[in-house]
């Protein structure tokens, strides 16, 4: 089997000392993938969905072992891994099993009167070999969701997990449940160097989730080869809390939104706008709730917040807090590491923050909760839209009309109303951003179709009939076409009747030679 032999060739067991996938290997991968794509063209959707079914079964039965691997490599709390990674993947699988058939079926499209008697169709065809580059924050969920969507659509998949969380051997083991799946997914371990080599092999499309910096590099390399790219990049998501909310609930929601996965989610809450009237009480409630949190990892499921996965991300968080502190922010909880030499940053509540601070300008990707004050609806829309990012947001208000009004005016890809990060909880909803948060959509019908190329088909019958728009162009045809346009596009109760009469004349005319 290609992946396992390749794995042993390119990567030792110790994931820290990982090697890149060599150029020769990447070539071989893509050659094999092309063959796999060819094989897949001859399979039915039902066959491919069988693999998804087996996978659901396998993941369910082996969830604790899978979580062991995820938590070991990410430092997540066990519940974070169970809920956001395992449950997330299984939800998506289930959604595929129930919806893929309908979405990927040939689509009938109505045919206009001018093309009377013909049939129109759209085929959703696989792209060929796609490249999925996954991040380290949800290495299981994002990787597997993307791979399975691509595979179900009939693509061969080349998958590069993050070098930080390669989870070596885990995916190989999963894909073993189904021979076709196993032969259609190729795992290439390595860093950005490997990613470049893989892009050089000209995948049909690249699906990248990660930082804006890397996203730009990938886009630049892909531009030269005209490879389409879907980019799911960072965010600076706002939570907007109006003063008519249940404070306890909103605070608990925002707290989770900011701290789940230790804040290392692209759609983490990173800016908390609280309306004047409840500002003090809201901050107080957040502070109390933070004190109740249990920070730990390698737990049995009872730790709330885990650790940071990488030191460079931790450095960003520390820098942002130091900068905010120096510029006058107040730090009400946390503000530093749990202890030296451990990647655990304490949940940090900041007030008196302003736009001059890095924490308001850059993505944090860590357990910070900067709280800002606002007075009016217009003000908070304007303030919170004034960022280069636009991934998702949450709006909290008892007034449903106001919440919806605000949701429509936010420049982002998703809004949860009176909840947080919940659009991601519905696999039927597309996920993706705008502005510097990227473009393209994962999940939902839109996301699934992103792994296909639509082929339009118009079907006519075989007959002696010559189309009027075919040659020869005669003066008489020209006049009739001109009359047809007038008839079709001038408002009249007899419009269609007139057009039909002209059409009949045109058909008669079409039979004549010049």
């Amino acid at each position, binding site marked *: 089997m290609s992946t396992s032999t390749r794995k042993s060739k390119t990567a030792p067991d110790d994931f820290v000392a990982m090697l890149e996938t060599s150029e020769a290997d990447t070539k071989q991968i893509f050659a094999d993938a092309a063959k796999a794509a060819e094989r897949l063209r001859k399979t039915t959707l039902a066959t491919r969905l069988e693999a998804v079914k087996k996978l659901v079964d396998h993941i369910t039965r082996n969830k604790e072992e899978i979580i062991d691997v995820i938590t070991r490599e990410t430092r997540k709390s066990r519940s974070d891994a169970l809920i956001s990674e395992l449950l997330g993947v299984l939800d998506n699988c289930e959604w595929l099993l129930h919806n893929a058939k309908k979405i990927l079926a040939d689509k009938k499209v109505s045919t206009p009167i001018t093309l009377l008697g013909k049939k129109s169709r759209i085929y959703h065809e696989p792209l060929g070999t796609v490249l999925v580059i996954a991040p380290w924050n949800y290495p299981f969920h994002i990787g597997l969701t993307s791979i399975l969507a691509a595979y179900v659509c009939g693509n061969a998949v080349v998958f590069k997990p993050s070098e930080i969380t390669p989870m070596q051997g885990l995916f190989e083991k999963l894909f073993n449940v189904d021979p076709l799946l196993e032969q259609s997914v190729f795992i290439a371990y390595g860093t950005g160097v490997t990613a470049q080599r893989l892009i050089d092999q000209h995948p049909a499309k690249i699906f990248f989730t990660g930082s804006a910096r890397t996203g730009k590099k990938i886009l630049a390399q892909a531009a030269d080869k005209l490879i389409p790219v879907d980019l799911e990049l960072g965010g600076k998501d706002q939570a907007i809390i109006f003063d008519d909310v249940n404070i306890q609930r909103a605070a608990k929601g925002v707290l989770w939104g900011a701290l789940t996965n230790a804040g290392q989610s692209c759609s983490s809450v990173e800016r908390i706008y609280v309306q004047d009237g409840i500002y003090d009480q809201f901050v107080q409630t957040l502070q109390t709730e933070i004190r109740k949190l249990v920070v730990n990892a390698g737990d049995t499921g009872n730790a709330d917040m885990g650790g940071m996965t990488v030191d460079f991300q931790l450095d960003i968080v520390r820098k942002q807090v130091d900068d905010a502190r120096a510029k006058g922010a107040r730090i009400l909880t946390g503000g530093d590491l749990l*202890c030296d030499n451990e990647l655990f940053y304490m949940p940090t509540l900041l007030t008196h923050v302003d736009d001059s601070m890095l924490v308001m300008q850059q993505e944090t990707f860590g357990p910070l909760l900067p709280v800002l004050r606002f007075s009016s609806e217009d003000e908070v829309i304007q303030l919170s839209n004034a960022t280069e990012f636009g991934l998702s947001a949450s709006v909290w208000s008892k007034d449903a009309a106001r919440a919806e009004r605000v949701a429509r005016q936010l420049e982002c890809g998703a809004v949860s109303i009176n909840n947080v990060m919940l659009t991601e909880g519905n696999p039927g909803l597309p996920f993706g951003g705008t502005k510097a948060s990227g473009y393209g959509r994962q999940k939902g019908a839109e996301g699934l179709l992103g792994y296909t190329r639509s082929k339009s088909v118009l079907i006519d019958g075989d007959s002696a009939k010559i189309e009027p728009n075919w040659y020869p162009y005669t003066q008489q045809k020209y006049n009739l076409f001109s009359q047809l346009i007038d008839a079709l596009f001038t408002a009249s109760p007899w419009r269609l009747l007139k057009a039909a009469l002209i059409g009949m004349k045109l058909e008669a005319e079409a039979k004549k030679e010049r």
Partner: protein
Amino acid sequence: MKRMHDYIIVGSGASGSVLAHYLTQAGADVLMLEAGKRFTAATFPQNEMDANAQLMWNGGMDMSRDAATLFIRGKVLGGGTIINQCLLDRFDDVALDDWRTAAGIDFFRNRDMERHYDAVESNLSLHYMEKADWNRNAELYVEGFEKLGLEWAPLRRGQSDCGKGNDCIVCLGGCPRKSKQSMLETFLPKAEKNGLKILSEFEVAEVVHGQQFVTLQGRHQGHPHSLYGRQVILAAGALGTTQLLLKAGVQKRLPALGRNFHCHPQWMTVGFFDEPVDSHKGAFQSVKSTDPRFRDWGFKLENVFAGPIAMSLLKPGYGFEHQRFMQRYRNMACIEVAVRDQAAGTLALSNKGRLVIDKPLSDGDRQRANRGNQIVHDIFSTLGAREIMTSPIQIALHLMGGCSIGTRASDSVVNEQFQVHGLPRLRIADSSIFPNAPGINPSLSIMALSHRAAETLLAEAGIAPSTSTTRKQEQQA
């Protein structure tokens, strides 16, 4: 405050304080948590009511599910050693042999335990009660024993200098003379001198064990707070420690958790004499039963008494009859049967997270109690008591088991490194690890086991335990 501690000790009683002393002596960074308040000899409550309310869990009114047994446990800095009688006996071969058999732990033999007893005793001022110490209650006890040909001996008690004119019963609510060798007068001040940090009024709600450290979530003076330690030692007693582990949700992996609960149930018998006995005056307890037959029969007879609130609880009924009972408080002599209970109880959590204690008595336990009570009746009859009453209320002061020590996760909770099976950063050396009831006051043995646990922890950390002699030499130098 520094966030990550080398060790956090939950509980400040005989186990926690001894561990704190030996760990800080070796230079470790140790934080101690105590749910109760910190008192001093000068600030202890002045009466029995306040003492119950301020020094004990649930006002000293923890009950078994069938409400037949009353459990008393300390909730104060110093734990049970503040409210006990500080009777400090070593375990005999009978107790240790039974433990070795039950737990499969080899160090449960006198040859191995001796140096641990020696070590902790070197920190305690121990006193054999003399005839001069006896109050009338003790005199009657001895008189009765001699008349019936039973063996008795003077008690060994931890006390430095009780002075003159003391009515020792008050020291069940905290010794105001700095004499009783509670942790507050012995191990704790030494540990604090060596850098022990203490957070009193910190009640731990949950213990979360992780790969690199343990998180303790709780409330400090009512406010939520989390604490972090590389190693956490649960020293909250049989009920407290077991409850914390039950809350941690490890019972599925450790089926022995909450089992093997023992408590040396006690039955108090009052003998009424015509002349005043004044059992509440003078030294509270002076003598003990050492009759070898009693050891075989599974009980001890205790020379005890209690304050008026506790005594009033012993008498069922109310109204004139109860008033008449209490009116004769000065005429009461009292002997108690403490049974070495065979039937294990269980500790579990209710749906609301409250501890539910089931402590049935086996027929054998009842026979032991009945036999003991019969002898007490015989003693009081011989002494010419006008009336004899055995209270139906069982009182339990020695709360033991729930997290038994052993070698396998299938039938024990901690291993011989005092480590919870499968949770290597969690340690227990308090009475909850007892595999069964020893039939001997447990306090000194809890200290000895905690000394051993401290040695184990320090050896793992690569630190040689510093002895008191080397420390003294350092100080002299």
